[in-house]
C-alpha cells in the first residue's frame, strides 16, 4: 500500500493513529510491527516473506557475528558473505520482480541497506547485536521508511524507540509534516512526472523542450523522494520517532559537492560510514582518496537500481565532485551566484544520465539542450511552458529555503503571528487539496524508482 493512496490516507491512517494512541505503552512496539507487516503485505502477501527472510537472517547473523567477533577472519568472512548474499538477492529480486509490477517488494533496497548497516555496526563493535527480535524487526520493517527512506542508523533508531513519546505535540507536528509531504508528492511530483512523461513521449525535441524535460524530471525526482521522506518523517513523528531529514534544499546550492550533500542525506551518510570509511578508511594517498570517492558514488548510483545509467550517473557525480574539489573550488570561492548558476546548469545535464534509456538518448538530449537539435522552441515546448510555468515557479520556490526565511522573518511581527495562528486552517485546506489532487489518477503512476 502506497502512502499517497486513498487506501492509506483515508481508510488506514486515522484508524492506525487512533489505535496507537489508545494502546498501552507496552504494546505499542508490537502494534507498530504488526501494522508495518500488514501494510507491507497488503494485497501481495508474498512481499512479507522477503521481509521475514531478511529479518530472520539479520537477527541470526547479528548474534553469530557478535559471537564470532574475537575471531577476526571468521567474522570478516561471515560479514562479507552476508553482504554479498544480501546484495545479490536484492539485485535479483529487483530485476525479476520489476516486471511483475504489483508484487514488487518495495523498500527492499532500503531494508537491505539498514540490515547491512546493522551487521557492519556489530562487526565494528559500535553496538551489540539485538537480543530483542521485536526491536530489530521494527527497525527493519518500520513502514514509513520503506518507500524512500530516510535510511536510519540502528543505534539512532533504537534510542528513538526507547525514549519515544506520544503526546498532542507529536501528533499535531507529525500530521502537519505528513500533509506537507503528501502535498509535495501528489501536487508537485505527480504533475512534474506527468509533464516529464508527456514531453519525453513526444519524440522530437527542441532546445526549449529538452530543458523543460530535464527540469521537470529533476523536480519530479526531487519531490517524489522528498515527499515520501517527509511523509515518513511526519508519520514517524506522529508515532513518537524523530527521523532525520533526508533532503536539505539541494537546488540553488553553490557547488555540486554541496548539492549532493543536501540530496538524499541519510543515504550518503550510510555510504560514507559503512562503505567509504569502513572499507577504505586507511587509504592515504591523495589519488586513492579520490578514487574511493568516485567508487562510492558509483555504488550510490547502484542503490537506485542496477542499471547502467544509474551507475553512469554515480560515476559522473563522483568525477564532477573530484574535479570540483581539485580545480573549481578555488575559482568559486566566495562567488555564490556564479557557483549557483554553474551547479544548476551542470546538474541538468547530469540528470539526463539518470532517466535516459540508453547512451544514444543521452547524446541526443545533451545535443538538443546545447542548441544543436531541431530548433530553439517547438509547439510542444511552448504549450507546456505556458501551461506549467506557474507550477515550475512554485516548484522552484518550494525547493529553495525561501519559505523558511520568510516565515522566520515575519514570525515575530503581528502578521507573522496571525499567519501562525491560522496554521491549522492552512493545513486543513492543504489536506483537502491533496485529496483533490489524488483524484487525478492517471498522473499518479506508481514509483518510477524501484527502491
Amino acid at each position: 500500500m502506497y502512502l499517497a493512496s486513498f487506501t492509506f490516507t483515508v481508510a488506514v491512517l486515522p484508524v492506525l493513529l487512533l489505535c496507537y494512541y489508545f494502546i498501552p505503552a507496552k504494546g505499542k512496539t508490537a502494534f507498530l510491527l504488526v501494522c508495518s507487516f500488514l501494510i507491507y503485505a497488503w494485497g501481495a502477501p508474498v512481499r512479507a516473506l522477503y521481509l521475514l527472510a531478511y529479518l530472520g537472517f539479520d537477527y541470526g547473523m547479528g548474534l553469530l557475528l557478535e559471537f564470532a567477533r574475537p575471531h577476526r577472519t571468521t567474522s570478516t568472512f561471515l560479514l562479507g558473505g552476508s553482504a554479498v548474499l544480501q546484495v545479490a538477492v536484492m539485485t535479483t529480486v529487483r530485476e525479476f520482480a520489476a516486471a511483475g509490477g504489483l508484487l514488487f517488494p518495495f523498500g527492499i533496497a532500503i531494508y537491505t541497506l539498514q540490515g547491512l548497516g546493522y551487521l557492519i555496526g556489530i562487526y565494528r563493535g559500535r553496538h551489540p547485536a539485538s537480543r530483542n527480535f521485536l526491536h530489530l524487526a521494527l527497525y527493519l520493517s518500520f513502514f514509513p521508511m520503506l518507500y524512500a527512506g530516510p535510511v536510519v542508523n540502528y543505534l539512532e533508531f533504537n534510542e528513538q524507540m526507547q525514549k519515544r513519546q506520544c503526546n498532542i505535540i507529536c501528533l499535531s507536528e507529525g500530521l502537519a509534516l505528513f500533509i506537507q509531504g503528501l502535498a509535495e508528492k501528489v501536487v508537485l511530483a505527480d504533475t512534474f512526472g506527468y509533464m516529464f512523461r508527456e514531453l519525453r513521449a513526444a519524440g522530437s525535441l527542441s532546445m526549449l523542450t529538452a530543458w523543460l524535460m530535464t527540469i521537470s524530471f529533476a523536480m519530479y525526482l526531487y519531490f517524489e523522494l522528498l515527499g515520501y521522506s517527509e511523509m515518513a518523517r511526519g508519520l514517524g513523528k506522529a508515532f513518537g520517532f524523530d527521523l532525520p531529514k533526508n533532503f536539505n534544499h539541494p537546488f540553488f546550492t553553490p557547488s555540486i559537492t554541496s548539492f549532493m550533500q543536501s540530496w538524499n542525506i541519510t543515504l550518503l551518510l550510510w555510504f560514507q560510514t559503512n562503505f567509504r570509511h569502513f572499507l577504505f578508511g586507511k587509504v592515504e594517498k591523495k589519488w586513492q582518496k579520490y578514487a574511493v570517492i568516485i567508487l562510492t558514488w558509483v555504488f550510490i548510483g547502484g542503490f537506485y537500481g542496477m542499471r547502467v545509467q544509474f551507475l553512469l550517473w554515480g560515476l559522473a557525480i563522483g568525477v564532477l565532485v573530484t574535479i570540483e574539489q581539485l580545480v573549481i573550488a578555488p575559482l568559486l570561492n566566495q562567488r555564490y551566484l556564479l557557483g549557483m548558476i554553474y551547479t544548476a546548469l551542470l546538474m541538468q545535464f547530469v540528470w539526463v544520465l539518470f532517466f535516459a534509456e540508453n547512451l544514444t538518448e543521452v547524446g541526443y538530449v545533451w545535443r538538443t539542450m546545447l542548441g544543436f537539435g531541431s530548433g530553439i522552441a517547438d509547439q510542444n515546448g511552448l504549450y507546456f511552458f505556458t501551461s506549467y510555468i506557474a507550477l515550475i515557479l512554485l516548484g522552484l520556490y518550494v525547493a529553495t529555503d525561501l519559505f523558511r526565511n520568510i516565515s522566520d522573518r515575519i514570525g515575530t511581527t503581528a502578521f507573522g503571528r496571525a499567519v501562525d495562528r491560522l496554521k491549522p486552517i492552512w493545513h486543513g485546506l492543504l489536506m483537502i487539496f491533496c485529496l483533490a489532487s489524488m483524484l487525478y489518477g492517471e498522473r499518479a503512476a506508481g514509483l518510477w524508482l524501484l527502491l
Partner: protein
Amino acid sequence: MKEHKRHHQMVVTIAAVYLVVLIGTIVNIVRSGVTWPEQADLTNGTWAQAVEEQLTEHLGFHDSLFRIKSRTDLFFGEKMVQGVYVTDDMLLEKLYPVDASPEQMAEAPNRFFEQTGVPTFLMLVPSASAIYEERLPANAVNAEQKELIRETYAATANGVRCLDAYQALAALKNEYIYYRTDTHWTCYGAYAAYKNAIQKMGFSAVPYQRYVISHLTPDFRGDLYERTLYGGVKPDMLDYYIYEQGGAVTSVKAYDADGTEHDRGSTLYDMQMLRTDDKYRFYLGAPCAKLVIRTNVESGKRLLLFKDDFADCMVPFLLQHYSEICVVDLGCIEDISAVDTDGYSQALFLCSVGNWDKQ
C-alpha cells in the same frame, strides 16, 4: 499553554477534514453500492488495486474535490483536464497518434472483401479535435488524422470503396456537427456524412427538408463532461430525425456474443437510456454483438454494418434504403470472419479514428 492550544487546533482541524470525507465516502458507498471486479485476487495485488479504485470512485465529495483541483489547474495556466482540452466553446479530446499503420487499419475491410466478395465500403470518421484544430488552445499538440485517413484509404484493396467523411464534415464546421461536451458527432454531422456516402452506395439521399427534427433533451452533457466535470461549456441538445413518409422499422432483434436473442420490439430508440449517464446510447440501445433491424423498405437490399458507436446515430438515416441492416459492433466481437455474410448485398465499415486504439 498557548502553544498546546495551537496543537489541539491542528489535530482537531485535520480530524474534522477526515471525518467529513470519511462520512461522505461511507454515504456514497451505501448509496451506490460497490461493484467488485471478479478477477480481484488477494494474493497478486489486484485485490488491493480494486480497493483503491473503489475508494477513488466513491470518495466523499468526489466531484467537488475534482472540480477544486481542475479549476485551480486551469486558473494557473493548464489548458487540459484529464486529456481533454478545455475551451470556452467546447471540450476537445487530445488526440494521440494511433498505434497502427494505415495498412493495419485497412486490413479488416480488405480481408473481409477478399474472403466474401461482398461489395465493401469503408468510412473513417475524424474526431472533433481534428476538424476543429483552430479551436484548440495555442500550441496544443494533437495527433493528425486527415493524412492518416487519406493513407488508410490509399491502402485499401481494389474493390473496397472509401467514403469520405472528413471533407463533408470540414465543409460544415460552422454548423452543429459535433457535440460540445461529447466525443461523438451530432445527428446533423452524421447526416452530412450519410448524404455524401449514400450516393456512392447507389442510392439517393433523403433531402434534409423531409425530416422533422425533435429535441429530446436540451441539457445533454456527454462523456467529455464526465471526464472533466467542467460546467463552463454550454450543454448539448440531443435530437432525433423523423421521416414520416419514409420507411419504418418493423423489428429489432439484438444478439449477445453467444447468440442469445433479445427482442427489442419495433423501435431503434431506447428511451430508458435518457435517464442514465450514457444518454448517447439512446440511438441504438445498449451495445450488443449483433443487432438485426428489419424495415418495410422494399428495395430488397441488405446491409452488413461493422461499426463503433459513431454509427449509432447514422443508422436511422441508412435504414431508409435497406430492408434489413445487420449491425455488428466491432467493440463487442472478437473476430469478424465468424459473422454470417450470406445474402448481404453490401457491407460498410464505419469507425472513428479516435476510437481505433480502444478496440
